């Protein structure tokens, strides 16, 4: 894995996609969807968002055309890879009642093997965070485990972060660190893109060995380092320094009221967040009541029902629900899972309909209650 960088052409990347598909992977990559980058099935580089970038700001996401023909010239798709590894809805079991007996059948474990193309450093970190949550405890999510254990990751270093990005300050990017099988850095030029390629696993090395490639020149290696340095320099935001667990010492800070006055409690942030893992279950039955089933689906701590116990919701106010989300994401997550729940992708900022900015809120809390009051 310490082999020198290789260079793949666009045709080489096509060969990688074909090789993955040929070995039974369902290959998912970025595609230019309707007004957004959408992770979807790809069969060649023709499906990639060639010449598209994105523009993100609080409450705003737009595609913008690029004039350089870059294949990975955007920052992030609205939806993370979570929707494949930890999907929005899945069947847990079904049961049939017959003559006083119950025949209960667990849903079969998923057999689909995913290969992801274009995973960013922050998103790899998010997958590692979900690994800790869903695989790191005494009990594992068996369906996530099945999908995760067969995953092949082609990461692509971020070249053009959005105004909402703050991975540098979270130490999660922009350079891909670990957790990938192959990492690519796109070198854009008038003759078309080339990709610096490096393996991150045995499987990745084996895959690269079978592709048409050549060793990178020192000049290309330097150009790759410049891509990452450029991304670092263009990072749009930063999380303020300091231990976020300080939040827990001031659960009655006036800023909670301030943010609650803006928050619509719609839960969009939790749906786009690549680490938010909360789920609920829904039981259904047919009209006879004989056939019943349980589905697991994404839930959100912004829903009133989320905290419902007999008599009502524990977190009835929007203030308490925003406080739960933020304190969990940045503080109690560390106690629970040994890592922050935030990777600095900025999706919660872009997809908040009123543009609440997690870095701005944290700056306000860090400024202390006296300045606020």
């Amino acid at each position, binding site marked *: 894995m310490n082999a020198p960088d290789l260079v793949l052409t666009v045709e080489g990347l096509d060969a990688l996609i074909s090789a993955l598909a040929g070995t039974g992977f369902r290959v998912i990559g970025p595609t230019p969807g309707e007004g957004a980058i959408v992770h979807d099935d790809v069969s060649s580089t023709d499906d990639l968002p060639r010449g598209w970038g994105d523009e993100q700001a609080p409450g705003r996401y737009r595609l913008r055309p690029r004039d350089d023909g870059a294949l990975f010239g955007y920052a992030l798709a609205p939806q993370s890879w979570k929707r494949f590894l930890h999907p929005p809805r899945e069947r847990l079991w079904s049961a049939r009642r017959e003559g006083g007996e119950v025949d209960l059948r667990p849903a079969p474990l998923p057999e689909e093997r995913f290969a992801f193309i274009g995973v960013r450093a922050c998103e790899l970190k998010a997958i590692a965070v979900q690994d800790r949550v869903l695989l790191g405890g005494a009990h594992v999510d068996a369906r996530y485990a099945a999908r995760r254990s067969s995953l092949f990751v082609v990461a692509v270093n971020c070249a053009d972060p959005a105004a909402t990005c703050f991975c540098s300050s979270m130490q999660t990017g922009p350079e891909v660190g670990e957790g990938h099988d192959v990492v690519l850095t796109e070198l854009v030029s008038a003759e078309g893109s080339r990709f610096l390629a490096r393996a991150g696993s045995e499987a990745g090395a084996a895959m690269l060995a079978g592709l048409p490639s050549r060793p990178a020149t020192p000049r290309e290696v330097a150009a790759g380092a410049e891509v990452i340095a450029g991304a670092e320099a263009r990072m749009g935001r930063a999380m303020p320094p300091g231990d976020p667990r300080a939040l827990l010492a001031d659960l009655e800070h006036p800023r909670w009221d301030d943010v609650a006055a803006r928050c619509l409690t719609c839960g969009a942030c939790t749906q786009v967040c690549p680490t938010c893992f909360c789920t609920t279950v829904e039981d259904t039955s047919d009209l006879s009541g004989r056939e*019943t089933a349980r589905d697991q689906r994404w839930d959100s701590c912004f829903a009133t029902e989320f905290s419902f116990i007999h008599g009502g919701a524990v977190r*009835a106010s929007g203030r308490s629900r925003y406080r739960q989300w933020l304190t*969990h994401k940045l503080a109690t997550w560390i106690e629970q899972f040994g890592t922050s729940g935030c990777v600095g992708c900025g999706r919660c900022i872009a997809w908040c309909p009123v543009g609440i900015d997690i870095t701005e809120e944290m700056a306000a809390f860090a400024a202390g209650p006296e300045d606020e009051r």
Partner: protein
Amino acid sequence: MAIPAERRMVDATTPRPARVLSRRREAEDVWTLAVEAGPQDLDAAPGRFAMLTAFGVGEIPVSYSGDPAAEGRVIHTIRAVGAVSRALAGLEEGAMLGVRGPFGKGWPLAEVEGREVIAVAGGLGLAPVRPAIRRLVARGERPTLVYGARSPAQALFREDLADWRARGVEVEATVDHAGPDWRGHVGVVPPLIARRVRDPARTVAFVCGPEVMMRFAASALLEAGVAAEAIHISMERNMKCAVGLCGHCQFGGDLLCRDGPVAPLARVADRLHVAEL
């Protein structure tokens, strides 16, 4: 990535079907089900809980109000207040329900040997306390119970209360509203606590009831000189998966299905005073 095979096999999300052996009414809207026990139920130590499924309706957490290891059957006491609890409470003898568990941490019974136990329970909070008292009584100890109910008719496990009194357990019962026949206390639970703490340094408290009751009971115990480390409270939050994966049962940094439901006051005292946590 590699996941150890023995952990991959664990799928705690699937219930096992179990049969209702009997059902009896405890109070107007409270029912006790006896359910056939499986091998897993031997781990149902007092204070832990199970997830019970009413097929086609849903699933809720329910504490063990009996001691399967001693009784050979599983006892759950359920107040019929929501769609699932009503469906469960309505299950007749012979009906099937789904069972997962046991889950969570129960009362620290092994640590209280030779100490004075005071149990403080409100309403249905007596259900998870009951098997703890039974175990203590069975091993010759004489715990104290302070129990509050809405009314004499709402008081649960009245046969047990009489039995425990006969075995030397000091039982103080109080009700919010009483008729002319009631000879016990009327009012809330916390003021009854102080007089029953005789040797605070040797006292351990088990507390379960509505959160507001637990908050005041905890204050009364602390004022009586019981250490926060020796006060154990059983917390309640919404629960879905019961195995630390769904995020619902958070109480500050605790996932109560994993880190509770029983927690030492020393760890959670500050959180009890934060509204809507």
